[in-house]
């Protein structure tokens, strides 16, 4: 029901390193009502233009400095994704995304003890690469 928190408007952009696009990123807020340690982020799934992004290419960051793979994140208890905080989801992809609009679907899955199965928030948006 908080699915409209999933994709921040105008947050899709290519990421450049040494003059070359190494990938792209977008921003997301938690669809729960409180902040949680990153280890409780059960999964992040992305589709761009209907095509799923390989899990291994996804990195997650709270501050733009420290990036974790989803595998690493399972043990990250010392960083808390705060409620309302825009986290960065980065996808490693040579060349980044072509300029123009893309249909992006982001799904975040979190674990919460009083809900028996991990619950997810999903949003699909057509976004232009900034």
């Amino acid at each position, binding site marked *: *029901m*908080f699915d*409209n*928190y999933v994709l921040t408007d105008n947050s899709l952009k290519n990421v450049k390193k040494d003059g070359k696009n190494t990938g792209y990123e977008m921003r997301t*807020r938690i669809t729960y*009502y*409180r*902040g*949680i*340690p990153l*280890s*409780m982020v*059960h999964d992040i799934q992305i589709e761009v233009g209907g095509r799923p992004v390989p899990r291994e290419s996804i990195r997650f960051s709270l501050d733009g400095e420290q990036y974790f793979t989803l595998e690493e994140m*399972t*043990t990250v*208890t010392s960083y*808390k994704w*705060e*409620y*309302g905080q825009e986290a960065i989801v980065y996808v490693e992809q040579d060349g980044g995304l072509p300029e123009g609009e893309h249909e992006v679907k982001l799904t975040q899955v979190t*674990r*919460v*003890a*009083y809900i028996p199965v991990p619950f997810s928030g999903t949003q699909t948006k057509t976004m232009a690469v900034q």
Partner: protein
Amino acid sequence: MSSIKRAVSLYSYQDEYARGKMTLEDCIKELAATGVEGVEIISDQMLWGAPEVSEETLADWHRIITENGVKPVCNDIYINTVLYNNRKLTTKENLELLKKELRLAHKLGITLVRLVSLTPTDIIEAALPLAEELNVVMALEVHGGMAFHNPETKKFTDLMFKLNSPYVGLVVDTGIFCRKHPRVSTQFFLNQGLNPAVAEYIDNEFAKGRDVEAISHQRVLPDELESGIRSWTDREYVLFAGGYENHDFSVLDEYMPFIKHFHGKFFEMTEEGTEYSIPFKEFIDYLKDKGYDGYIASEYEGGRFALPGTEIDAVSQVRRHQEMLRSYI
């Protein structure tokens, strides 16, 4: 006029907070301006780093509270038993987390923690000496969908009766006294494609005075209801409908001595100044009759049913709820 006191849970303003429209300080200022006596917080929502908040955050909290003269009365805490994806935390680990929360409450000047439903019962007794030392009461939330008959809730109340301590009690949510299914939820699901016949079935059950939780949380639904279900939205709606329980106030009788606080859950204030689903007038009359002198904290949950393209206005909803409480108290 009775000695029942009014508070607001900052849960109410979560959308405004998440979108950066209101800071923690703005929320407290709004309460002060509305003449609210107490505030209930969710430390994991608005205090960064909780339960290990920085000295700066603590100092800022005390400054905001003091400047605005609103009393912090409850912290809604939660034990992250599913911290790892490959195992549940052990009892010892859960106990350590609870102790951290008790210490945080103490530092925030709060003498009551609300434990979310399904908080492990087996850590309460071991945490009791610290709760006594810090003067922080541990009270389990009794929430719609998990009221007194729920086995996990009963496990806690059994222990509560056994310990018979002023530091172990309950926070009851008024969502267990729904006389009608919230229509903001119905509209939300209809907008998502809910079969109107399913909504009608649920509304009729309420109209007959039945408790929908007893229907929707069963593995097998009544044929008439099941035959109306055509989509995942229909099924989700029916499952959620069980979160609005329809109990008589007398269900509280035996627990009253242990009730530390109420969540004045509400979904929609109507034009007439009443809550659409919950009979607050009768509820407060019941509490007066029982001599309750604690807080009722407005907890607005209608925001989650905002239709696409509409703005959530928790501020005016909370104001109207407070006005209603004030007039009934």
